[in-house]
């Protein structure tokens, strides 16, 4: 209900204002405040309604209320920027650490993979005829005359 500035206020609207906002004129919508106060001055019925609304306001004002913030809470809240910056740094540090570990693992893995691939591709060792293989190796490694000598 966005009334234009200085909207005329009828007694019925005045009653609605009191029902909603109570007797304190500071709470009434600014656009209707002036007209409502004028009505209050000149109309006895409006004054009676106002007084009635006022009695509830007096009761509401007696409700317990918090008048100051606990010091520990204020301190915790003022610490938020510092704590938040610290958390961001810690997160960045953790993620740097994680990436460092990943890089290190890759670095170690690459030679293994290369070794495995090259071993698979270029290996020519046969295990079928072990005796022949050993004889060939022995023939290469030892002089011919040694091979011809009979063992005692």
């Amino acid at each position, binding site marked *: *209900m*966005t009334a234009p500035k200085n909207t005329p206020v009828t007694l019925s609207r005045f009653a*609605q204002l009191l*029902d*909603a*906002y*109570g007797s304190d004129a*500071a*709470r009434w*919508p*600014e656009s209707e405040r002036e007209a409502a106060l004028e009505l209050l001055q000149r109309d006895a019925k409006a004054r009676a309604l106002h007084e009635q609304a006022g*009695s*509830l*306001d*007096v*009761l*509401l*004002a*007696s*409700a*317990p*209320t*918090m*008048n*100051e*913030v*606990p010091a520990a*809470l*204020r301190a*915790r*809240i*003022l610490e*938020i*920027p*510092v704590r*938040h910056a610290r958390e961001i740094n810690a997160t960045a540090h953790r993620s740097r650490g994680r990436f460092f570990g990943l890089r290190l693992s890759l670095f170690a893995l690459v030679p293994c993979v290369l070794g495995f691939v090259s071993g698979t591709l270029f290996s020519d060792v046969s295990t079928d005829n072990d005796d022949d293989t050993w004889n060939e190796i022995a023939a290469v490694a030892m002089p011919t005359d040694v091979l011809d000598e009979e063992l005692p």
Partner: protein
Amino acid sequence: MLVSSYIAPARATLGPALSGIELPYPSGTRVTDPTSDDLACVQSVGRGDARAYRRLVDRYLLGITRFAARILNDAGEAEEVAQETFLRLWTEAAGFEPRAQPKTWLYRIARNQCIDRLRKRRTRGGAALPLDEGAADASSGEDRPSLLFARKQTALRVEQALDALPERQRAAITLVHYEGLSGAEACEVLEISLEALESLLTRGRRGLREQLSELQSFRAGEGS
């Protein structure tokens, strides 16, 4: 409205009479209205300015905590809501769009958290809220125990009546009656129209009047 426009002529007129009074702003300080100053502060917070953050904390922490305490009726949870609200101020200020006022934005964050918490704890009972009973006691100056006791009882009864209201009515009454928000500001917090706000306030006050009818007659008797 510039505060200095009131202060400067007052200093000139009153001269030495003001010399012993410490004003909240140094003379010549240009202080704009709270809304635009809030906006400037939020923008500064978005750039990581901790001093602007502190100003907003000083300005709104009490109201936000009190509002959450009234809605949740639990001091511990109200403090958590306040912390979360200001954490979000710090982390989300850079993305704040000035369609709403910073003040109503903060209250809305707090209110949404209160709603979440109320949903979660439907089955749990809340701890009692240690509130000052200043309003009941401070004005008295009278030390008749029976009168003090009656006032404390009245305060307790009013608190119970407020707690018994549905959340939306309680939020509307708390914002307008206790936190001093204008109708337009309360509408922004609750994300409703002015008609809807007036309806909530009217129903809330009617409910309170019914619950407190015996107290109203008591106070009428006390006054006579």
